[in-house]
């Protein structure tokens, strides 16, 4: 049931945790937020999606413990403290990022998010997976022209490597943007105009239940942070 959780509930919970995680004062409440985020995301996407982030959190935690009394490390411990919290926010972002784009756009539309933002988001989700493919294709072509094939190139002429990567990337990006816009225009995409999403966005009883549970958990974590609870 949680796998079909309404995307607006996912977005709301993500914002709730992301906003709260930065201001929590006690470590206990951060751990509680982590547990909530891990359970929440596991129920929606499965435990496998959460494990890498949990490992990352554990790694950062270990590093923090090791550097606790270290000298000459500057602000690194403070950065690690916030990096761990960021991992919690990323875990909460996963159920939103992995939602089908069409359903995500439909949900944002119901939330009255401006069309400029929803179209931009759709393009972002569409092309983020292809950026690495585009970059690989460019690096592949560079090999045959001996560009960036030696570590000396990166030390002696880093600006050239940058130029030879940026030029084809910009050419491709411009061409794709041009063609995509033309394709969108002929299919009636407009910034101001009527639009009816294919996916119906409707809150079920389970969605309301999940929303209440996430609010309750947030309340408990805040009370814990304020010392209002015995633990």
């Amino acid at each position: 049931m949680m796998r079909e959780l309404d995307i607006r509930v996912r977005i709301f919970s993500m914002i709730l945790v992301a906003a709260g995680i930065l201001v929590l004062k006690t470590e206990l409440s951060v751990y509680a937020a982590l547990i909530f985020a891990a359970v929440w995301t596991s129920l929606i996407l499965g435990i496998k999606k959460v494990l890498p982030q949990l490992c990352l959190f554990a790694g950062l935690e270990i590093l923090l413990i090791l550097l606790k009394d270290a000298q000459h490390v500057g602000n690194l411990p403070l950065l690690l403290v916030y990096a761990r919290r960021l991992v919690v926010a990323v875990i909460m972002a996963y159920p939103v990022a992995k939602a089908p784009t069409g359903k995500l756009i439909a949900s944002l539309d119901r939330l009255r998010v401006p069309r400029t933002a929803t179209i931009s988001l759709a393009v972002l989700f569409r092309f983020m997976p292809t950026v690495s493919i585009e970059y690989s294709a460019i690096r592949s072509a560079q090999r045959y022209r001996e560009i960036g094939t030696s570590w000396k190139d990166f030390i002696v002429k880093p600006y050239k490597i940058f130029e030879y990567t940026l030029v084809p990337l910009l050419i491709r990006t411009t061409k794709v943007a041009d063609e995509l816009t033309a394709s969108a225009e002929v299919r009636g995409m407009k910034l101001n105009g009527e639009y009816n999403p294919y996916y119906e966005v409707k809150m079920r009883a389970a969605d309301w239940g999940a929303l209440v549970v996430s609010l309750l958990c947030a309340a408990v974590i805040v009370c814990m942070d304020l010392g209002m609870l015995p633990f």
Partner: protein
Amino acid sequence: MDIIKLENVSFKYGSGKKKEHDLKDISLSIRAGECVIITGESGCGKTTLTRILNGLCPNYHEGVLKGKYILDGETVFYADGDKTVDIDDDYKKSIDDIGTVVGNVFQDPRSQFFAVNTTDEIVLAMENRNFSRERMRKRIEETDELMGIRKLLDKSLFKLSSGEKQKVAIASAVSVEPKVILLDEPSANLDPEGMESLGQLLERLKCKGYTIVLSEHRLNYLKHIADRMIVMSYGQIKKEYSRDEMLKLSDIEMIGMGLRVLSDISPFKPSGRKLGDNPVLRVERLCCKRGRRMIFTDITAGFYRGQVTAITGHNGAGKTTFCKIITGEIRQSKGTVSIYGEVASVKKRIKDCFFVGQDADYQIFTPTVLQEVTLNTYVSADDKKVCRILESFDLWEYRNRHPASLSGGQKQRVLLAAALLRDRPILILDEPTSGLDGRHMRIIAEYLREAADKGKCVLVITHDREFINIAADETLNIGK
């Protein structure tokens, strides 16, 4: 009844300062239910004509427009005599309005897809036109009945084959029930089986009453359904052929017009041409596995100097993977790659091979043709060899131009020139004739033959049967 009527339409991109028109005095009528092919050499104005028909010129691609266009009985634009069409006063329809009558399928599915999921892509136009959900669901059912798209629904677009992507693109266009389907080189990325399926699909659409207008180079898969063929040249309609007239055109006449042939391509016959008895390149029991999927297995073959070998196979068979193993870019799971009789390391393979990819845009790094060709070669730009090579590729006059400003065929020739200047023994090309007209396809075949005659071992990944018959000495089929 004429669904499309153009009268004395002329168009120039930009502000109109240049002398030559991109389209000159086009008058054309297309009846409802017809299938019309628009063809011609690259740069003849086919794509510009399709952009006039779908409204992208001048609304998106700005320019100076003259003439009259009537679509489905309604005026799209009209300007008297030699007067220029004023976008605000004389242009009566928006791109969106035109889009309700004219459904569009562009050449490259990679850059026309807006969504990640197939269903999202198919419903996109319907969502933007405020169809009710019930109507959208009904249209998906009807489109499935017509095109058989059920098994393609709710799939990731990244995991589809070229043919499946093309099908989704057509389904997206058909979903809003346009009267005209306008396709721009839809077969460019398809293998022969894909082209045949596309031809059958277009025939079904025509039987359903859709008017089909295609801008195309590859023509023989359309000869059973086309009612007319319009040949363009230098922005003008050179000649119109009825179906009977079109079918009577001989190969020589088609080649004379710079076009690809209409007749069925005869089976390939190996020429036996090669230099020497020992292969430059040899693969033994080559296998490639990715995860659980076996891409290909147990390939053994030799490739010789002076020989052009066409690497063929259906889309997804592993042709590009095979060639990237040869160049050292990908590691094989089993087997060996030998160059000049010795098992070649990855470093040696990269040093001895030059790979020209399908998309030239990934392979342009410098601001001039001269710099592009000599990049990292340690050959001076003043060297006579550079001049000779550029002249032989008809690129000398463009030597100071940015390669990105050249046409697709010219960019391809820049990369070939760069390959020949490097003097590596093995040259591999991926679909060099995709999207090329007959004349430029034959020019590429000539260049590859010259490269082979000069001692290169040339491998070409290609679906293009006409090109294989002209250029190749041998073929190797991957996947059979």
